Every structure is written in structure tokens, then in C-alpha cells.
């Protein structure tokens, strides 16, 4: 505190020596407004520590109000406890940065609410490592209220007619199902049933093997099915056995099928000789596909591609 008997402060107009002048550090003021966190990162303990954790601020600043949120948080008081919570849930140290880059908003959440949600998942008998996996792969998961999570789990169980265990396995494999929109999933199920003509039990099998079909684009799903079923002649039961073909690019399926047809090797019926499974058709890398399945060279394949 100031002592009124001390020497009064110097006037700004007072002449000073060169030495004293050189020692004045006049930094520019921090901007009041900015579109980038670059202007603040060297003056904010929170931002600096987040960068050191591996958070990509250049991505975060593009999100709505995320940069603003980070600037208002105090590392010791607000951020630290959330980080400890996330580590407790099972997020690895080196995963914290990428996780927070995708979901910076969690740093502004109420810790108790977060803990309640984890407790809910545990009450549903999700194991610790399963919860860690789900949170990691669907970073927004813990922003959802218990009520909403519960509704979602109920929805999938009822719509698909799956057992409790199978529903849990489904959301553990594709936790995005809990955080994404429901309408597109409903529509995809309609497409599978009505337009593609799969039976309910076939849909259940497909969904459990390749959950991604629930979030795939309808147009792509229909186009891929049309080619597989109507052009290649693959029956429904075979598609149910190898639903991973729906995850594959249509172009890849087309090119490889046309090459096999050209070579006279397009045989997809297991009852016949020289059977090629759909799995072999789409999952193998190009070189292996050429040598093992098509029994031709990569060069032959590329030459063929150029005639299409």
C-alpha cells in the first residue's frame, strides 16, 4: 500500500536517462476483441496449459463460443478438476488433447452432473473400460443428460427389438448412436425394411455386425444395394451374412466386380466352385485382391480400369 510520505510518482513528461528509458517495458495491450486465440495464448495460463496438453486451439477457435469459454475459465479452479475427472473415466493422457479439441465445452460443465451421468452408465452395467471407450469415441456423450441417454438406449432396444446385452454391445461399438440425431436412424431402418426388402431378423443381424449402416447415407445405401442385388445378383441372405459390403465404396465394388466378370471369375455362390466371398471382394487391399482373387497382376487391373 502506498505511503503518502514517499516520493510522489514521476510525471510522464519528466526527462529520464537513456538507461531508464531502455528499461521501460511497454507491451501492447491485449485486444478486447479478436477472431483468433493466437492473440491471447501467450497471456493466458489456461490456454497455454491446454496447448501443452495437445489441444488444437486453431480448431477450437472455429467452434461456436468455445474460444470465449476457454478464456473465461481459470485453470486451477475450473479446468483441473474436469481433467482429473476425464482421467478417472479412463481417457489416456495423450488422448486428452484430441478429446478436448473435439469437445472443449466439457470444460464448462458442472462436475457433479458429469459424475451423475457416469454413475448412470455404471448402473446400467457398462464396464469401466467400455465407458472409457464410449466417451473417447463420442466426445459429446457426457454432455447429454441421464434422461436423454436413457431415452436413447430405450429407443434402440425397442426399434431394433434387441436384447439388453445386444443393445449395449451396439452402442459400445458405435457410441455416436447415442449422441447423433434419431430421425436419420429411423429413416435408414425404413429403407432397409421397405425399399431394400430385408426381414426384421436380417436387419437385426446386419445392425449388430455393422452398426454403421444406421448412420450411412440413404442414397449410398440404396445405390450400393441396387448394384449388389440387381447387377451382381447377390441374394438377401448373402448380404445379411456379409453386411460389411455396405460400408465399402460403391466404386470399389463396381470396379472389382467388373474386373472379375471380365476375367470370367465373378462367382459369388458358395454352392458353386471357385466361390468368391463378398468379404474377400471388398476387404482385401488392391494387390492381394489382384493376385489371390482375380489371379492377375496390378498392371492388368489398372489397364482394365482405363477401359471403363
Amino acid at each position, binding site marked *: 500500500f502506498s505511503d503518502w510520505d514517499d516520493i510522489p510518482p514521476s510525471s510522464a513528461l519528466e526527462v529520464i536517462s*537513456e*538507461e531508464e528509458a*531502455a528499461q521501460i517495458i511497454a507491451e501492447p495491450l491485449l485486444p478486447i476483441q479478436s477472431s483468433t*486465440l*493466437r*492473440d491471447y*495464448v*501467450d497471456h493466458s495460463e489456461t*490456454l*497455454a496449459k491446454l*496447448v501443452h496438453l*495437445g*489441444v*488444437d*486451439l*486453431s*480448431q477450437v477457435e472455429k467452434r461456436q463460443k468455445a474460444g470465449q469459454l476457454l478464456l473465461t475459465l481459470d485453470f486451477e479452479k475450473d479446468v483441473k478438476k474436469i481433467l482429473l475427472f476425464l482421467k478417472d473415466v479412463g481417457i489416456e493422457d495423450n488422448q486428452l488433447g484430441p478429446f478436448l479439441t473435439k469437445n472443449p465445452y466439457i470444460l464448462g460443465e458442472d462436475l457433479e452432473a458429469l459424475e451423475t451421468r457416469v454413475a448412470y452408465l455404471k448402473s446400467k452395467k457398462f464396464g469401466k473400460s467400455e465407458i472409457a471407450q464410449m466417451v473417447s469415441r463420442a466426445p459429446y456423450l457426457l454432455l447429454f443428460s441421464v434422461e436423454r441417454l436413457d431415452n436413447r438406449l430405450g429407443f434402440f432396444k425397442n426399434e431394433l427389438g434387441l436384447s439388453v446385452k445386444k443393445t449395449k454391445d451396439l452402442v459400445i461399438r458405435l457410441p455416436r448412436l447415442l449422441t447423433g440425431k434419431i430421425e436419420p436412424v429411423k429413416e435408414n431402418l425404413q429403407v432397409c425394411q421397405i425399399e431394400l426388402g430385408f426381414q426384421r431378423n436380417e436387419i437385426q443381424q446386419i445392425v449388430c455386425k455393422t452398426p454403421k449402416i444406421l448412420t450411412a447415407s440413404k442414397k449410398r445405401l440404396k445405390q450400393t444395394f441396387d448394384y449388389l442385388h440387381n447387377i451382381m445378383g447377390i441374394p438377401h441372405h448373402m448380404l445379411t451374412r456379409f453386411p460389411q459390403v455396405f460400408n465399402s465404396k460403391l*466404386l470399389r465394388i463396381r470396379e472389382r466386380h467388373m474386373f472379375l466378370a471380365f476375367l470370367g471369375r465373378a462367382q459369388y455362390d458358395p454352392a458353386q466352385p471357385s466361390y468368391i466371398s463378398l468379404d474377400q471382394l471388398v476387404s482385401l487391399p*488392391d494387390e492381394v485382391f489382384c493376385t489371390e482373387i482375380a489371379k492377375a497382376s*496390378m498392371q492388368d*487391373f*489398372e489397364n482394365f*480400369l*482405363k*477401359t*471403363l
Partner: protein
Amino acid sequence: GAVELVAARVPVLADHPLVRGPRFRKLKIGAGHRLDVKASGVFVLGIGHGNKLLTDLYNCHLTKVYTVGGLFGKASDDFSDTGNLVEKTTFDHITREKLERILAVIQGTNQKALLMYSNIDMKTQEAYELAVKGLIRPMGKSPPIITAIRCLQFALPEFQLEIHCLHETQQYLRKMVHEIGLELKSSAVCTQVRRIRDGVFTVDDALPRTQWNLQSIQEAIRNCQLKVETELEKTLA
């Protein structure tokens, strides 16, 4: 004594990649002559300085070569085999000779158009010699011109043509298939339009999807550099 100020560079977080973002965000890529959605084949792209070369090559008005597939017996509203069926006709009366006769007529009328749009006075000996060598072409705008057309394959109802042309669109080629069908007192739809050459670039120079990576692209650019330069010198000189 004099006071010295020494500049020292201190690393700041503002320059950290996680704060600054990626160093390279854009790549200027230009496309050459159009290839519509239903067609396939050679498609030329340019990067950086290549964009300028693309413009120069465009001004050379070099021919493009296509293989065009056709199917007799049907006519559709967009001239292709994926369009709505408009008519069905018989085609057993069509022979390869008849088809080739029509192609000769097409070549003839296009030859006249070629000379007309090339602004060459055919009465000069020089012009005649150039024409004989096939070195005449319009160096400005013109409607589509066929410089050569021949039948590669004929197996009723399918046929395949090789077409050399300028200032074309793929739809123009499809319409030509339709008109050939009409000329032969039948109908035809186009099943395939595949560009096998665009100026100096051939199918062999083209990269299939399996080679769409940095190394192959760099190599492809290197391999074509010389012939691009040669052609530009020849034409624009």
C-alpha cells in the same frame, strides 16, 4: 556509457502449430476440357503454373479422341442408354457397310465445316498441302467439328466408333449416335463415351484412381512436361 538493445527471438505459443493451424490450406487446381458425369476417360488437371499452361493448351485447339459405344434398336430422350425410352425399332437390316457409308458422309460434311472455320483460302497451294496433311484446324471458336470418324467394332445390335473432334461436348457425340440410328432407318442410344486422348495427353499418360498419390502425380507431370512444351512452341510460334 551507451545502452545496447539486443534483439532476441523468444518462442511464443502464438506460433505453435496447435495455435496457428496448418501451414498449407489451399492448392490451386485447374481443370482442362470438360468431361460430363456420364463420360469417362482422360481428364487433364493443372496445378500452380500448370493452370497457365492449361489456358495456353486450350488456345491451341488440339483435337480430342473418343471411343463411343452405341446400341441399335432403341431411342431415348437424352440419347443415352440410361434415359427414358422413347422408341423401339428393328435393326436387322443394318450392315457394317451401311454404317460406314453414313460415317463417310459425316466426315465429308465436317470436312467442309473444318475448312470454313479455319479461315483458309483453299485456292492457295499452301492451304491445299496443309489440308492434305490434316494440319488445318480452326484457331478460334466454332461449333463442334469431327475431323475423323471410323467404326472400330460392329456386332449387332452393338457398335463402337472412334471419333476425332474439336470444340465438342460429350452430349453432342451422344446426339450423333442417335442421328446415325435415324439415318440407318432405325434408332440408337449411346452406351459409352470415353475420351482416349486430349491434345497431347493419352490414356497411357492418365493416372487411374489407384495412383492418385503425390509421387505418381509428380512423375506424371514430369513425363508430360516435354511434349506439352513442344506442342505449345509449335502451335503458338
